[in-house]
């Protein structure tokens, strides 16, 4: 059950005591980085008092590119990871040997928690290189002892060939790509339930709905576990679902967790939604203090049945900057996914477009129709269109224009899915 029983089953009091010690160590370590040199807080007496430390934002990482956050000597740093950085400087993160060992151990802990064992064959379809999803899982799975295939993303037929040839049991995959890959199984006349030995999917890197997870589980006959991570903390392995699939445990021996109101910066009570703020507790090369992840979630109150006390966060609703404001109504793309995935006859791919019409915002949702449900009449299609419109209205409180598309006609991605196209005139 446990990779590291002492840490995973630690009691709340012991965790807090450890966190306070680590927070103070981190405060003094961080002061070695140019960005944190003049930190107003040197030491805190309680976890509550840590809220006096200023936030660190993604923009700070960009503004102090490239070495402003490195606190160790360059000779100590052994690895650099980086985000794509489509606007301005990319964000870079440095690791020492010890940082990499701890990260690897965290990933192994997550994998072991969901039942991956050394007998498993693990196929990692995430990108290798600067992106952390590839290497992070590679080292974690190797440490656990599973045969690990660093296949990387893309080339769906080859993915399937590897799965069949080597008897892959565990796959790390983008949720949108899992759906796309299933259609390739279908094209090849294969059924993953019968024609593979797949049993566990690790899905993450993209916000996705519970409905989408259930769909992946049904299509492949697997258990799919949600993975949470961000390169600023290390990458994957920051938080992970346990077998109860009820929120992601954040490893509190490695991170101090806060959820705040993004407007005021004040802490919100457990169960209430806000922005996740993380502080690294054992990071050597690049400690981050009260880092605003931009991810919206809530802390799930109460204790998990799995026996771990480590706090659980709810499925990520999106990033604060994913939020769409349609004629003054706030909504997240994930809510649209949640509503349409519930409806039989709707395909796995969808697309969201926002345009300006008569000075108003107009929301278009384009969904693919499943080939099997088409019985040949226009009325069955308009009925489906109405049903989708109603479900969406109930979920997002905005009336969209629903457009039905032919199966396979919407764009597909082998990397992260791009589903929102905001074409509004400013």
């Amino acid at each position, binding site marked *: 059950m446990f990779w590291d029983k002492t840490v995973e089953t630690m009691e709340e009091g012991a965790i807090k005591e450890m966190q306070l010690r680590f927070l103070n160590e981190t405060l003094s370590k961080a002061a070695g980085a140019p960005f944190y040199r003049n930190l107003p807080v040197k030491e805190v007496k309680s976890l509550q008092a840590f809220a006096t430390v200023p936030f660190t934002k993604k923009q700070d990482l960009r503004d102090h590119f490239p070495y402003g956050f490195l606190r160790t000597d360059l000779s100590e740093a052994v690895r650099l990871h980086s985000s794509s950085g489509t606007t301005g400087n990319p964000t870079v993160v440095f690791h020492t040997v010890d940082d990499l060992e701890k990260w690897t151990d965290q990933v192994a802990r997550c994998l072991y928690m969901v039942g991956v064992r050394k007998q498993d064959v693990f196929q990692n379809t995430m990108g290798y290189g600067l992106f952390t999803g590839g290497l992070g899982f590679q080292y974690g799975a190797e440490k656990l002892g599973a045969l690990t295939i660093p296949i990387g993303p893309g080339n769906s037929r080859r993915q399937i060939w590897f799965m069949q040839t080597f008897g892959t049991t565990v796959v790390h995959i983008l949720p949108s790509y899992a759906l796309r890959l299933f259609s390739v199984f279908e094209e090849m006349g294969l059924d993953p339930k019968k024609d593979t030995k797949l049993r566990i999917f690790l899905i993450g890197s993209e916000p996705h709905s519970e409905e989408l997870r259930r769909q992946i589980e049904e299509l492949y006959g697997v258990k799919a576990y949600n993975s949470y991570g961000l390169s600023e903390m290390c990458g994957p392995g920051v938080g992970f679902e346990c077998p109860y699939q009820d929120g992601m445990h954040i490893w509190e021996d490695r991170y101090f967790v806060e959820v705040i109101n993004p407007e005021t910066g004040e802490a919100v009570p457990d169960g209430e939604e806000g922005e996740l703020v993380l502080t690294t507790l054992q990071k050597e090369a690049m400690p981050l203090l009260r880092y605003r992840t931009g991810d919206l979630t809530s802390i799930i109150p109460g204790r998990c049945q799995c026996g771990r006390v480590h706090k659980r966060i709810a499925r990520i609703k999106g990033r604060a900057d994913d939020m769409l404001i349609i004629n003054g109504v706030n909504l997240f793309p994930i809510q649209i996914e949640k509503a349409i995935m519930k409806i039989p006859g709707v395909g796995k791919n969808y697309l969201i477009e926002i345009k300006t019409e008569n000075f108003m915002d107009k929301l278009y949702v384009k969904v693919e*129709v499943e080939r099997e449900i088409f*019985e*040949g009449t*226009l009325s069955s*299609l308009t009925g489906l*269109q109405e049903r989708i419109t109603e479900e969406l209205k109930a979920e997002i409180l905005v009336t969209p224009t629903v457009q*039905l598309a032919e*199966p*396979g006609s919407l764009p597909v991605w082998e990397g992260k899915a791009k589903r929102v196209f905001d074409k509004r005139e400013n």
Partner: protein
Amino acid sequence: MAYHLSIFMENRPGKLERITKILADHAVNIRAVSLASAGEFGVAKFLVDKGETAYNALQEQNITVSKRRILIILLPDKPGAMHDLLQVLAENEINLEDCYGFVIERGKQAALVIEAEKYPQAEGALRGKGYKLLSDEELSNL
């Protein structure tokens, strides 16, 4: 039992052309066609001489196609003929879900294609009045 092919398609340039190309490539002859649109998308119905060939070819190209049962009723090509036929259906309270027609031989023979909700009654009523219904084979031999 006769059927036509009903196809779901987006209402955009080139979409219909894609279908006719597949039919042409498989030497399928189109007897009649009807289109119904709901704005962004619609349904096209094709009555063809080689239904099975066309259906398989379209499926292979991942076209969303379904077979819909129809009645193909022969009637004289003259004023009032369609009215006579519809009277029979109305008297028997048979509702039409879709309907289109084509001429087989000018001034002599035409055909009316219908999708109805009550097939056995419709067939019975029409045959009772002496109408001839075309089967699949007869359609391909036209």
